[in-house]
């Protein structure tokens, strides 16, 4: 078993000067942090001695917010359409492209709430290693769109963590599971968490984990099962002025969990159990008698597993239907699966296990802890990215990416389940004489009409030289990086003028909002933030210089002496600039150095490539 529990003092500590990079599972219900050394990952315990940290914020006045991961990267319209029944305390007035929650007399965004959880986990890791931790691999549901991924990255930034990589939860699970069991072949990962559902089909062989297809629903999870119970309780006439929504949710959760082992529970006893665990406040506790008295029967209500099945069958069928669709997209028959790995706390429900077994004809693989496996996989990936291992993850994008074309249609440029990184170029032309600007709308989704897809960005391409209609040719390139995050480049062909379009996300935080939050999250004077950012710029400058120097040492003979001297001068220049107190100056210096080194980089990459493709220049292949 991969999961190893270390006694204090026995933990394999990283080398003295090595930076620590952790793996984080930022879940809807629970979050975990893990670390891996020599491909042996383990979870780091929090102050309560538990590996699991609830994704809940509790204010001094007892007020709580939870499940905010469901709101990441969403706007108020999404909330109104899908999540209004979840008991979030949303400030509908203030919310628009980003949601604001009322909490402790303040307005807090889901990004900030997630940042608080990340800070807690960072703190756990720092306490464990007794040193600063500022790098992490963070997992996201495979089905997260660009805005949701970006929101997760923003949360990490607020928490003072550099994201080495966002990886998909089922992929992380497969990595931990596959390495642990030495599994080879084609597997499905069925991941039902508190708020999200994902299913991925992967082929695993000798350290290569290749995702063939992935799908899911970023708004379907164990919480929905609880909500069905809540709805039913309300229908039964179980309501009480003093028993609010979140108490009912707790009760529902309790019922759900009891039904994992028992065929039947009676609500009265589960209420008492709740009281015993002092989950209910003393006030609600004292109203329990009256709560029960309002119930239709004398003292208790029986709640059977079959009733639960009946209430939630439509949810379970939804997961199986998605499973089936993903198999179709992967072009894999269900019989070809070597196994189904179950991930996420909600796969403990017998109703899910039975449905998966019925569909696949195989007993689902449940011999790993579904709560910790994702964090462990993230930790392994963090090790791969910092110290290097032999593993390689090849993941795909879950959603198609395209542009709005004439008539409001969505034209797909990068289709779903394309391996990432991925890029695609498309040429456009002007439709009016002397046209100097062009509007481009980037979309994500599977629907035919642009209005039914998620708009990721709408930008204006400006500076097109005035020419007759149809003669200016603009090439737009969409690029998805290994995190599944989009960038856009546009090039006007006749002038060769290239502009990198900074895609302003339609949903999520603008960079100004981000900076403001960064300042307020620090609880320090603005001066300290300035210092921190200045320090970060210096570190980055130093790293760039170091890497370029190393490259020159190895491959200096690839370029003429003059160019080499020029680069060395540029290095000296940046070394001087680094002493400046002006962050922007240093950042400009880094940019200048990288620009100067571009051609050298091209030659180095060509050299590496020539090993494979027989001495051609990269751009010619």
């Amino acid at each position, binding site marked *: 078993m991969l999961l190893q529990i270390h006694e204090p003092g026995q933990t394999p500590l990283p080398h003295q000067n090595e930076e620590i990079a952790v793996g984080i599972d930022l879940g809807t219900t629970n979050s975990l942090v893990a670390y891996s050394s020599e491909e042996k990952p383990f979870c780091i315990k929090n102050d309560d001695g538990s590996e699991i940290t609830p994704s809940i914020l509790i204010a001094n006045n007892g007020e709580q917010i939870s499940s905010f991961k469901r709101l990441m990267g969403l706007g108020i319209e999404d909330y109104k359409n899908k999540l209004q029944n979840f008991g979030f305390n949303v400030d509908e007035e203030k919310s628009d492209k980003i949601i604001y929650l009322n909490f402790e007399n303040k307005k807090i965004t889901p990004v900030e709430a997630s940042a608080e959880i990340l800070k807690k986990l960072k703190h756990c890791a720092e306490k464990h290693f007794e040193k600063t931790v500022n790098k992490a691999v963070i997992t996201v549901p495979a089905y997260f769109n660009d805005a949701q991924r970006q929101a997760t990255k923003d949360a990490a930034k607020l928490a003072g963590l550099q994201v080495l*990589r966002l990886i998909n939860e089922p992929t992380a699970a497969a990595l931990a599971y596959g390495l642990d069991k030495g599994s080879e072949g084609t597997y499905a990962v069925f991941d039902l968490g508190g708020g999200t559902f994902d299913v991925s089909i992967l082929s695993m062989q000798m350290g*290569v984990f290749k995702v063939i297809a992935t799908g899911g629903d970023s708004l379907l999870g164990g919480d929905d099962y609880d909500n069905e119970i809540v709805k039913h309780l309300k229908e039964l006439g179980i309501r009480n002025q003093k028993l609010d929504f979140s108490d009912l949710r707790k009760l529902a959760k309790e019922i759900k969990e009891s039904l994992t082992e028992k065929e039947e529970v009676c609500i009265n006893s589960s209420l008492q159990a709740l009281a015993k665990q002092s989950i209910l406040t003393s006030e609600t506790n004292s109203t329990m008698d009256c709560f029960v008295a309002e119930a239709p029967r004398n003292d208790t209500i029986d709640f059977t597993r079959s009733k639960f099945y009946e209430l939630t069958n439509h949810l379970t069928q939804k997961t199986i239907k998605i499973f089936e669709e993903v198999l179709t997209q992967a072009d894999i028959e269900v019989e070809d699966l070597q196994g189904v790995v179950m991930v996420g706390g909600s796969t403990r429900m017998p109703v899910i296990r039975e449905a998966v077994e019925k569909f696949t004809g195989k007993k689902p693989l449940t011999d790993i802890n579904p709560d910790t496996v994702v964090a462990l996989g993230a930790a392994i*990936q963090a090790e*791969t*990215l910092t110290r*290097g291992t032999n593993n*390689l*993850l*090849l993941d795909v994008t879950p959603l198609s990416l395209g542009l709005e074309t004439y008539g409001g249609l969505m034209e797909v440029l990068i289709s779903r389940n*394309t*391996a*990432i*990184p*991925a*890029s695609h170029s498309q040429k456009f032309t002007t439709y009016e004489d002397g046209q100097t600007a062009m509007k481009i709308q980037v979309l994500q989704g599977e629907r035919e009409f642009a209005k039914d897809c998620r708009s990721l960005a709408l930008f204006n391409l400006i500076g097109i030289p005035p020419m007759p209609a149809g003669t200016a040719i603009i090439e737009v390139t969409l*690029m*998805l*990086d*290994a995190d599944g995050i989009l960038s856009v480049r546009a090039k006007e062909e006749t002038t060769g003028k290239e502009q990198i379009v900074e895609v302003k996300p339609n949903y999520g935080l603008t960079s100004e909002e981000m900076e403001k939050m960064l300042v307020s999250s620090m609880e320090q004077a603005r001066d300290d933030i300035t210092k921190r950012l200045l320090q970060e710029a210096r570190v980055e400058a130093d790293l*760039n210089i170091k*890497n*370029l120097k*190393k*490259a020159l040492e190895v491959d200096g003979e690839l370029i003429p002496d003059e160019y080499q001297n020029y680069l060395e001068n540029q290095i000296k220049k940046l070394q001087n600039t680094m002493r400046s107190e002006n962050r922007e100056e240093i950042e400009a210096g*880094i940019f200048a150095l*990288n*620009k100067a*080194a*571009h051609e*050298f*980089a*091209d030659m*180095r*990459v060509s050299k*590496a*490539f020539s090993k*494979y*493709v*027989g001495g*051609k220049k*990269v751009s010619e*292949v």
Partner: protein
Amino acid sequence: MNFFTLFNLLEQFDLDLKTLEQRYFELQKEFHPDRVKGKTEPERLLLVRKSADINQGYRTLKNKVSRVEHLLEIKNIFVTREQNNTYKPSQKTLMLQLEFSERIEDESEDKEKIKLEVKELLNNAFNNFNKYYIEGAFEQAASEYFLIKFLSKVGNRS
């Protein structure tokens, strides 16, 4: 970019998928962003694009229809909807198109039988394409492409 060169494979239709995948893994183990450490920023950006190209190459060569398109493309024959204005489907292909669209609509037709027929026709078309291509008869190969494109569409639909 010639993906056959990239993957060090012969420029022909027949290809061993196992070898292709093996080459794909080799290339990604070298160029995937996760495997690249201690590089300068411009190198890193170039390598992300390379990794994207490798992904695209693998996808293109793995799928038989896009492999055919790519084989033609490297001979400067452009047959896809966006690029083509020279090459047209043959009379034979058009007739077949008509025939199958009628038969698919027809309730009394055995759909399984159609499926098998299409599969056989498609295999023949691939074989013919391969033969023409090796002979250097690219015009005929291009003509065969339209048949392939149509049959694979029918195959996916039925």
